[in-house]
């Protein structure tokens, strides 16, 4: 099961990113198709998530 999960994950990741993730991330950025949304909010949110991951992963790292 572990091997199956590991083998499937990269395919899942690639598919998800390009099927749903990319349009959503692009909407967050400057290429927005929703004029009612403020693109800077999405950029800030993505930066916040990236920073949070770095801080959480920074734990225990020397």
């Amino acid at each position, binding site marked *: 099961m572990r091997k199956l999960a590991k083998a499937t994950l990269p395919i899942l990741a*690639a598919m998800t990113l390009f099927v749903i993730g990319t349009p959503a991330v692009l909407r967050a950025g400057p290429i927005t198709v929703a004029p009612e949304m403020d693109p800077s909010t999405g950029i800030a949110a993505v930066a916040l998530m990236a920073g949070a*991951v770095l801080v959480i992963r920074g734990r225990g790292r020397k």
Partner: protein
Amino acid sequence: MSDIGFPLTESAQPQSQSSLPLVRLSSSNFVRRILLLALLFVSEVIILSIWLDGASLVQRAGLIGIMHDWGAWILRCVVGFPVIFLTFAYLRNKSALESISDQIEQTPIRWSLFAAHCSAMGIFVGLSFVLYRGGGSDSWANLLAASWFAVGISAIVLAGLAFLSWAIWVQLIRSTGHLWAYSSVAVVSACVGGNVVRRLWQPASYLTFHLTKMFLSPFVSGIIADPARLVIGTQRFRVEIAPQCSGLEGVGLILAFGILWLLVFRKECHFPRSLVLLPFGVTLLFALNSIRLAALILIGNAGAKQIAVNGFHSQAGWIAFSAVGVGFCLVINCVPWFTTRQQSGELLDTATHNHTAPFLLPFLLILASGMIAGAANASKGPGSFEWLYPLRFFAAASMLWVFRRSYANLSWRCDWLAPAIGAIVFVIWVGLDRFSNPIPIVDLKVSAELMAFSTVGRVTWISFRVLAAVATVPLAEELAFRGFVMRRLISSDFQSVSFRHFSWFALLASSAAFGFLHRGYWIAGSIAGILFGLAVIRRGRIGDAVVAHATANALLAAYVLTYHQWHLW
């Protein structure tokens, strides 16, 4: 809050580069070249997509019609193929990449080809403007479109060959076997799948509609709900649930984020149990989207229609995604049932070994409080009045206070050049603004909203705004971008990297990131980032960058207040 500060190992004393204990990935040369190439292409695509309007190609025949109908799909494939190919090549063929990386060390970037790329891009931009403006006969338009394609492809090839030689590209394709074919199939499948998923937007909107009604009913009586038009609300305020608000985008984001996490940190996750977090995150975010819509209606029903539409609507979805995303990271990273790290002792003494937090948390708190403050805005976009702005000041100040001891070993000194750099940044910032807005904008909207405050309220708000601009923002941003990002791009053990260590890649990438976070001022922000970065590198003192940044912000504050240029804040 307890003081969890601890001394940082960064020394203010200059270190010689040869003595740096840098942790380098053996394939890092290849990764850096690819990232630089990606940065170049992404910047060019973003600039072009802002300037060119695809709507002008509607109902045109021949090659231009094909461009309009298939342009977005071609772009997705062009972006998707290299990303999938390189990701799998990195994961599955590391040894091949290491060999390529060694060769890259011997082959510098070919600036002549890069210059040729820039020339081709110049022609491409010129052709784009003629093409998108329209006019002319069909045969002329087709000839123009064919030239546009040819020049565009030439520009891509020239950039590719400038960063990596032909021999290296051939070796990359050969050493990865049939990966190019699998990647092609994957990207085409993803594009087709993406189109199919859009058909789920409508049924998902119905589900969101009913969930919103359920969450709303305990708080409001006499709900107006029209399932046929997906309109829901009250007598005073109602909304239409558009397909984009169905919650599927949040689902996509959390799926992409969660799967990427599981992929990158797969060695630290227990499988298959960690996969449980994916449906849990998806369900939670989908439900939160309906709660967001219910809250939106409640805010509008309470009389704050402008806040509901302009502030809360834009921000609440991102706040929910960030909260679920951070929760996902914390759970999978810290709960022993999901992670293998604790068993190997890697989480021991976690509270005292987090050297990243003092550099990043003040800035992250500014971002987080900015989202919350933005949700309470009655207007949106540049020049909007953020009445909760002091929240950003207190958030950053509290984090800087908590980690104050961690900053003791950094060099906070500066010399005369720091304020001079700040003044230059101010001139560039205002100059670029005047260049893009030749007729000066006077933001009467913010002035009017400020005038609605009492004198005490007005003075308090302006005081905190200025205080944040000259104190907490420069400190937090310099710690994050020059203290952390610039050095982290040189080595994963960023604290071993001297502030004097110079790397073009680190300087440009950290400055680009800094620029992008300054919304419409990304060019000025990127230039400012480069100058602040050079200020740090010059003497190895973060104090120089902080003072330069504070000077620029102070001058900008004076300019904004004197000439009512609120959009610059």
